[in-house]
């Protein structure tokens, strides 16, 4: 069973569960379809995926990419695996995340921000207004000081949330970012239909 949200509150338990995640049923087609998105994160998890280096040449034999920041495909179709980086900070993040949940058989929270909100949640200790005022009113060298407000910019949420607070999440890959070897092992085992067993070296940090 995938770890549920309550278990997240116990990091040790979560790691224990992660090290024994169940495999996805292989669909009856050649390649699994993978989509990725970055919400309120730093893109580091996507960079860590690229850090599999020349193994990416193997990966494209194993999977087909749907919407990712690396392709020109702009809306998501039905996918086997969705990888989400980043937490949820505005209404657009919510929309993209729900779209992924609706279209992906398996949804994975990749990295600290998706798993527990990460560094962006440091703003949760302040009022959103204070944060905006610091950037756009009290900042050094700021002219024409006021808080941006336009129909074209999406509403910010008052707090930043981990993705499991918005949608059901099947797997959690912690780390800031999770290492390339961790991501590679996860993907290849899931693609092969195996259970994933992480050695300790792949799930300890800094």
């Amino acid at each position, binding site marked *: 069973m995938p770890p549920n949200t309550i278990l997240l509150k116990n990091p040790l338990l979560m790691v224990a569960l992660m090290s024994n995640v169940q495999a996805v049923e292989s669909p009856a087609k050649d390649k699994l379809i993978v989509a990725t998105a970055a919400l309120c994160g730093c893109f580091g998890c996507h960079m860590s995926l690229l*850090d599999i280096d020349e193994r990416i*040449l193997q990966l494209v034999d194993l999977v087909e*990419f749907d919407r990712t920041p690396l392709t020109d*495909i702009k809306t998501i179709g039905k996918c086997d695996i969705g990888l989400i980086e980043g937490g949820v900070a505005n209404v657009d993040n919510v929309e993209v995340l729900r779209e992924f949940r609706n279209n992906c058989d398996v949804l994975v929270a990749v990295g600290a921000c998706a798993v527990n909100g990460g560094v*962006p949640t440091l703003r949760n200790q302040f009022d959103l207004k204070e944060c905006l005022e610091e950037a756009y009113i009290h900042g050094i060298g700021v002219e024409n000081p006021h808080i941006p407000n336009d129909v074209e910019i999406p509403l910010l949420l008052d707090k930043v949330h981990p993705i499991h607070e918005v949608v059901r999440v099947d797997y959690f890959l912690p780390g*800031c970012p999770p290492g390339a070897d961790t991501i590679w092992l996860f993907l290849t085992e899931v693609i092969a239909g195996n259970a994933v067993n992480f050695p300790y070296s792949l799930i300890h940090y800094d």
Partner: protein
Amino acid sequence: MKRIVIEPLTRVEGHGKVTLLQGKNRNIRQARLHITEFRGFEKFIQGRPYWEAPVLVQRLCGICPVSHHLAAAKATDMIVGATQLTPTAEKIRRLMHYGQTLQSHALHFFHLCSPDLLFGFDDNVHHRNIVGVIEDSPEIAKQGVLLRKYGQEIIRLTAGKRIHGTGAIPGGVNKSMSIDEIRYLQDDIAQMIGWAQGALDLMKTVFREQYDYNMAFASIETSMMSQVRADGAFELYHGGLRARNHLGETIFDHVDYVNYNDYIHESVKDWSYMKFPFITSLGEENGWYRVGPLARINNCDFISTPLAEAERKEFMAIGDGLPIQSTMAYHWTRLIELLHCTEAIAELLCDSDIVGKDLRTKGELQSYGTGVIEAPRGTLFHHYEVDDEGIITKASLIVSTTNNNQAMNESIRKVANQYLDGRRLSEVLLNQVEVAIRAYDPCLSCATHAIGKMPMELNLVDEHGELIDRLEKKVNGLINRTL
């Protein structure tokens, strides 16, 4: 209110959404690239100790975290009173920075731009990406992957890990290189120089094949700002600020970046979370400028490494003594920098200081610190103020892409005026807008201190403020009109 269609701007590191405002005669009077994410670093860094800044603030951006890591480290050098780093510390940081610039430029060229160059803009959307390059031009794809890997390996060996490392600390670094690590990197450096030169040659060929188009496309006349070394040399890690106008005339030169607030201010606009910096002496209307590879190559007097210097001369020759304003020339200059980085890495790998053990200096705790670096996308400013305990009380960040904010809007406006046919948006226009934005290699998420895929849609608003057209690109590559 009508649901906004999500239209991500792809293959730029980040995301955006564009509105075109028509004036009379259907001219585009304003283009607005909306930056729609906000994170609030300036506020939540307050109350943290200064020594957290280099590891915390780099979480702004996972694409060039080393730039933020080093800009913050330089600011904290000042805070701990380390006026002069040890040679080992400075050279290890430089090595880290060259590795970073190498991997970032390689990523942009091979992973994000080469599909356009190799396949053209009309190629099928499912093919026009790095996977298509891997299938059709495996050798080029392999070079790109391995060049980026090499840069990432330098970062790993100097910073501890590839993304969000910890190598730079206030007043120095926490490790130097071992002989084994140097040998490991030396094994491949000649190959990397060769591949960087090859990528540059490919770029030049493509540029020259459609020379007039590339010189004119999205081209705008602007001032440019960058850091230069005291002798005017090209500089990425540490220098004085130089700004020149569109004729190449000096606006300011060799400015100590600690005083940047006397020269650069930022304006706020309603429709974007990204602020609009400008040179204060020229005013908000005329003072906007460009940064990044194009500005650095135009502004410097020479490059210290021979292959890149020869390439700089060849590039500057197309300007006939004037700064080159072609927006597509960002691609060309980015690869001159890529070549320079490989050469500079080769030099440093032969420098005995990088195995030194004298890693750190310090002095009296100061009340503030400013760190400025030439990040891959341009000049990056970090400024922190601290109390007696060393707790941060104020922070100010001007991120590289933010400097190009107005310039990107002006380039989009130029393209829109050229390709907009009356009152209907076209697929050609949508593609061209994306190409113009991608030339700047904007890290939009980083610029708003937020990253990820932000929605983009192309909206057309007439002179009465009415939305008259909107385009959306579907998964099958077809353009959909959603109004």
